[in-house]
């Protein structure tokens, strides 16, 4: 399709501030101001995430509530980006160079973001699985007095939990391990009994993204063509800012929540250091990357604060269970009681926060879908990327 004369109708439909356009120059001024404000807002919001003003440990870095704040920040930034884009700007410019290439890249990033959202959404279900197993442990060890029975019960659940967490960590090979621990019915096709069953062996959640899909590769692809604009087209800067935010948020989510194939997550991504408005993001990214590198060696299912806590507690309780002799020493029991209480608290936070987190992820998903549709429409109106009719 040739460039059409449809500009009029398109602007009529989407421009909310068209009436406020006084002159091209005046409009341009306003734009630059808005972009500066955008930068400031981004900086402020991430600054808040880096060092929150009120000192509640519930908002520890990469905790569930912190992640929810992160998603909120993303939604705010996205809304502001949208507002700037439709600010009486001649929308047909989107479909011409150099902006058209930027927007095509943005479209691609949007698609990857959608896939990451889905993967993380699924990963949260894996976390919920941990929670359910941990609740068994809590249930067992909350009983008084703690006897053989309770400890054995806890041990079964602890073993399953440890295995589940380890399996989530084995990125690409996760599938194989899952199958081995869960061999039934595949040979012979019918429900052959697995005599080799491990007591208390619960299946880890199998990966549900496409085979070969890799979270870290997606992030890498998203950030590889993200290049800071060098003057020129004004709109390029907000696109860059918005994209930087988007990639960072996705990266942080993938680091926190179990996701398919994350090897090299921290090595191939970083926020450019020289951007003034991105300093808080840089700070966060460095912190998270450091944690990731530390944990990657030992193996970890996710940097989610609650998972980390759970892993520690589970390790300790597992040792207790292994070496348990009835009756146990009172100090030991008290220690265990404290740990169990902590575990219960962690489970509670998961219980309360995981579902809202998933709802927020869906909200992000919807927003990105809408964004994508709007960009596609703008590009097509501009006449560049139309599909030939025949």
């Amino acid at each position, binding site marked *: 399709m040739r460039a059409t004369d449809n500009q009029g109708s398109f602007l009529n439909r989407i421009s909310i501030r068209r009436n406020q356009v006084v002159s091209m120059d005046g409009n341009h001024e306003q734009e630059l101001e808005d972009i500066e404000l955008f930068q400031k807002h981004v900086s402020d919001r991430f600054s808040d995430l880096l060092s929150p003003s009120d000192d509640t440990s519930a908002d520890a870095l990469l905790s569930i509530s912190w992640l929810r704040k992160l998603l909120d920040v993303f939604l705010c930034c996205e809304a502001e980006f949208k507002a700037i884009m439709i600010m009486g700007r001649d929308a047909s410019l989107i479909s011409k160079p150099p902006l058209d290439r930027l927007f095509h890249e943005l479209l691609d990033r949007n698609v990857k973001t959608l*896939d990451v959202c889905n993967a993380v959404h699924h990963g949260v*279900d894996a976390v919920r699985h941990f929670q359910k197993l941990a609740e068994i442990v809590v*249930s067992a060890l909350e009983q008084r*007095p703690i006897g*053989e*029975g309770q400890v*054995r019960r806890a041990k079964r659940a602890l073993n399953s939990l440890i295995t589940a967490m380890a399996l989530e960590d084995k990125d690409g090979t996760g599938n194989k391990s899952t199958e081995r621990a869960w061999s039934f019915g595949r040979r012979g096709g019918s429900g052959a*009994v697995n005599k080799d069953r491990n007591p208390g062996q619960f299946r880890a959640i199998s990966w549900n993204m496409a085979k070969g899909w890799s979270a870290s590769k997606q992030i890498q692809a998203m950030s590889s063509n993200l290049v800071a604009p060098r003057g020129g087209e004004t709109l390029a800067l907000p696109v860059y800012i918005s994209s930087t935010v988007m990639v960072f948020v996705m990266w942080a989510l993938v680091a926190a929540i179990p996701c398919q194939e994350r090897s090299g997550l921290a090595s191939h991504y970083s926020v450019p250091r020289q951007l003034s408005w991105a300093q808080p993001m840089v700070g966060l990214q460095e912190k998270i990357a450091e944690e990731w590198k530390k944990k990657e060696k030992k193996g970890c299912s996710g940097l989610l604060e609650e998972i980390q806590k759970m892993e520690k507690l589970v390790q300790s309780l597992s040792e207790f269970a292994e070496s348990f002799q009835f009756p146990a020493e009172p100090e030991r029991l008290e220690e265990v009681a404290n740990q169990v209480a902590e575990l219960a608290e962690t489970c509670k936070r998961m219980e309360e926060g995981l579902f809202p987190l998933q709802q927020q992820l869906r909200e992000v998903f919807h927003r990105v879908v809408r964004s994508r549709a709007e960009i596609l429409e703008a590009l*097509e109106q501009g006449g560049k990327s139309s599909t030939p*009719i025949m």
Partner: protein
Amino acid sequence: MEPPESARLALEAAEEIILRWDSTASEEARDKMIFEGDRQEVDRYLHAVDHIQRSISEVSIGDDQGKVNSAIQIAMARLEDEFRNILLHHTTPIETDSLIDPSSSTHSGTTSAPGGSVSGSEFDDDGDDDKDDEVDELLKRGDSSNSVSYRSTSSIREIDLIPFDEVTDLRSIAERMIAAGYLRECIQVYGSVRKSAVDSSFRRLGIEKLSIGDIQRLEWDQLEAKIRRWIRAAKVCIRIVFASEKKLCEQIFEGIGTAIDDACFMETVKGPAIQLFNFAEAISISRRSPEKLFKILDLHDALMDLIPDIDVVFESKSSESIRIQAAEILSRLAEAARGILSEFENAVLREPSKVPVPGGTIHPLTRYVMNYISLISDYKQTLNELIVSKPSTGSRYSGDPTTPDMEFTELEGKTPLALHLIWIIVILQFNLDGKAKHYKDASLVHLFMMNNVHYIVQKVKGSPELREMIGDDYLRKLTGKFRQAATNYQRATWVGVLYCLRDEGLHVSGSFSSGVSKTALRERFKTFNAMFDEVHRIQATWLIPDSQLREELRISISEKLIPAYRSFLGRFRTHIESGKHPENYIKYSVEDLETSVLDFFEGFPVPQHHLRRRSQ
């Protein structure tokens, strides 16, 4: 009231049974399964468990309680394994092959929208009709929705996944586990085994794990095949697989505790359900282009058909998110359909090809558009619900030269969809008008328009649904238009030719000869011959694909040409024949002309200088 001694003995006996089956303690306990063996042993075991359970409250603190608790744990661990084992015996995926009508898979992966079928070979009228029918057949939404594969109609059909006896066993285990506070373990085991079974069924049904990125990258005809497969699979998933899982949960867990059957059901199907819907969601957000319309509508209709069943199967509060997702997808598909229609209209209006179609025949755009809207009329039931607003452009006399005008007030009482279809025909003609202007020959401009508008009329008449929506009023307008084009053509070509055969200017008054200027007459004949030759030569390469229209136009030409020539010849031939070389001037007999007219609009490939003349 039992004396304490016998109570203690009974308790010890029960404990002994439990301990005997402690799989961590003995090889034998590991190798055999209680529920696979002697029924009496099963009963004994269960009674022992019950006994231990009851005695918890009775036993005093101290070692005894510790022993009892330990026994309970051992029993629960054992029961858990037994539970898992019974479940594992019934994990074969549902035999869904027999449930899918094999005939519905004969629709091969050929493209369903006319988009891919337009090519140079489309100039043959007969072939076009066949192709249209074929496309129509392919597109009839008999993919699976009309198939007779399901013995019932399209309602839920639960299968008994596990035989009754074993369901009873499972239930008796579940009761005890839950009573002992081991609910969580029970749900976990159940969920993990059943979810794997559902995963196997999914694989059997060919449900793939594709990322949204993957789907955006696939070619549309590949996606069409996947959508078809998905529609078939989704029906089986929801109406049979999920429904059966729900029934199984109810069979095992209903009445034990609160909403445990719901929890188990969600544990089992949540992941697979999301995986299933993710595909439809990815399709609903993919880039829009005209050829996608009909598959999107198929998907929309299939999903809409399924929503009541989805609402039933996923009725619990905990499965709300699934119902919500399904509804969201449905609404996105509707939006996509609307958007595609709008884009189609835009594409028709702006279709830019300037190369004139040789011979003034039917333009591929015309065929494509008419096929497309015929298909739309097939889908009118759905589209009437989805398309609720009138076409947006051209509803006023905008003065915009790039868009035609269309007054909607005279089309009162028509559904929005019908208005869109009429609008599409309007803009098709508008576009064709623009294309016609590229012909250098004015006559060809008219012939082209005549051919194309006639084709439009034929297509509308050929489809009852389309005709009903377009309406006979507008059809009359179109008919008038192509008749007018025919008239314009005749004027453009034949006025000049017939002018040669006029009487005026030939008679000279007051001379010795018969009053006819021989010079002028010879000029006339020469001019007529030259003009007719040229017109004959050129217009034999033009084409009117419709045989009836071709005939009619020839007859119309003949009706004017032949009598005029006959009369001219009759009156003036003697004057020529009395002079030198009459053959230079009278080239055609009346029969020759009649024969030559038969060459017109035959679409001969190249202008031929020596066309057959039968009378020679």
